[in-house]
């Protein structure tokens, strides 16, 4: 189970917000505080105020464009996510020529599918087999193939995962519910700002007749980080 790593990943209260009309205006949204007699707007946390201050300062200096910030947030909240990676995995499962090209030069092959840009400059696909299971970590910070998987989950960024994935990968995998045969080697890839990895999980048995969309449903984000196997139909 992911319990141990996920337990370290504190759940936070959400509060309403809008990326709305620019740096100088923020409309308070409904929130779940019980203190509704509060006479003033809900005061954001200190780090939130510091971020607003930085943003305001850089807008005032003409160094950033608030609309570009909104666009970046919208892209990663709504447009880019693990479905991109799943599409690549399914193509590798179903097209031997694509698979060979992907393993040879992932960056170029996924760029042809339109998956390129930020944090996708140098991507490497690593394939799971009966002999080898691949798993990805970033021990430095949280380098991750954004164009294929979006923004990394909290546990990927936690000290617990970043330290232990390298030291005791089988134990970490067991906590994610993955128990591999003894003979299967585990290789842990340490991402960097220059190199990011996509795990190609093994195609499950009994999926021969399934179409692309159904196969994509079996490819979870975690299976492409290597902390899960592909689902079964």
């Amino acid at each position: 189970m992911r319990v141990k790593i996920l337990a370290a990943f504190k759940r936070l209260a959400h509060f309403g917000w809008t990326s709305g009309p620019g740096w100088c205006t923020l409309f308070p949204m409904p929130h779940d505080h019980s203190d509704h007699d509060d006479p003033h707007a809900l005061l954001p946390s200190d780090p939130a105020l510091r971020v607003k201050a930085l943003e305001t300062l850089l807008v005032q200096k003409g160094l950033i464009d608030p609309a570009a910030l909104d666009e970046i947030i919208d892209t990663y909240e709504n447009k880019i996510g693990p479905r991109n990676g799943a599409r690549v995995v399914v193509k590798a499962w179903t097209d031997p020529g694509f698979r060979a090209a992907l393993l040879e030069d992932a960056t170029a092959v996924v760029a042809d599918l339109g998956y390129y840009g930020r944090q996708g400059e140098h991507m490497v696909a690593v394939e799971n087999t009966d002999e080898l299971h691949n798993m990805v970590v970033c021990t430095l910070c949280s380098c991750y193939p954004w164009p294929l998987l979006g923004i990394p989950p909290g546990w990927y960024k936690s000290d617990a995962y970043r330290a232990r994935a390298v030291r005791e990968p089988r134990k970490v995998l067991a906590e994610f519910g993955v128990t591999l045969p003894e003979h299967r080697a585990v290789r842990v890839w340490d991402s960097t700002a220059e190199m990011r990895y996509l795990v190609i999980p093994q195609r499950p048995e009994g999926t021969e007749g399934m179409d692309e969309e159904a196969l994509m449903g079996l490819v979870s984000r975690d299976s492409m980080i290597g902390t899960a196997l592909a689902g079964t139909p």
Partner: protein
Amino acid sequence: MKPDPVFEAPWHAQLFALTVHLNEAGHFEWGQWAGRFGATLKRHGLAKELNGGEDYFAAWLDTLEVYLDEIGIAAPGEVALLRDAWKAAYLGTPHGQPVRLAKS
């Protein structure tokens, strides 16, 4: 099951976008940023185990503030003044009204 939100708090998203935008505008290289951020995470992680959520972005913010000062585009004094101005704006705005920064 509802998927986890991409960003847990709005300021995480704002900070992320701000950093990506500054990188793309050519103010710093991503590799330089990642090296500094990794060092901050390591330093913060000495005192307690970081959970990858709020404390991850706290380390991110500390790194960015120091880096922007270092490259000369945001001095700590300027940032602190605006932080205080925003705080005053929130405290001085009736609940339910849009919060605006006073012109100064």
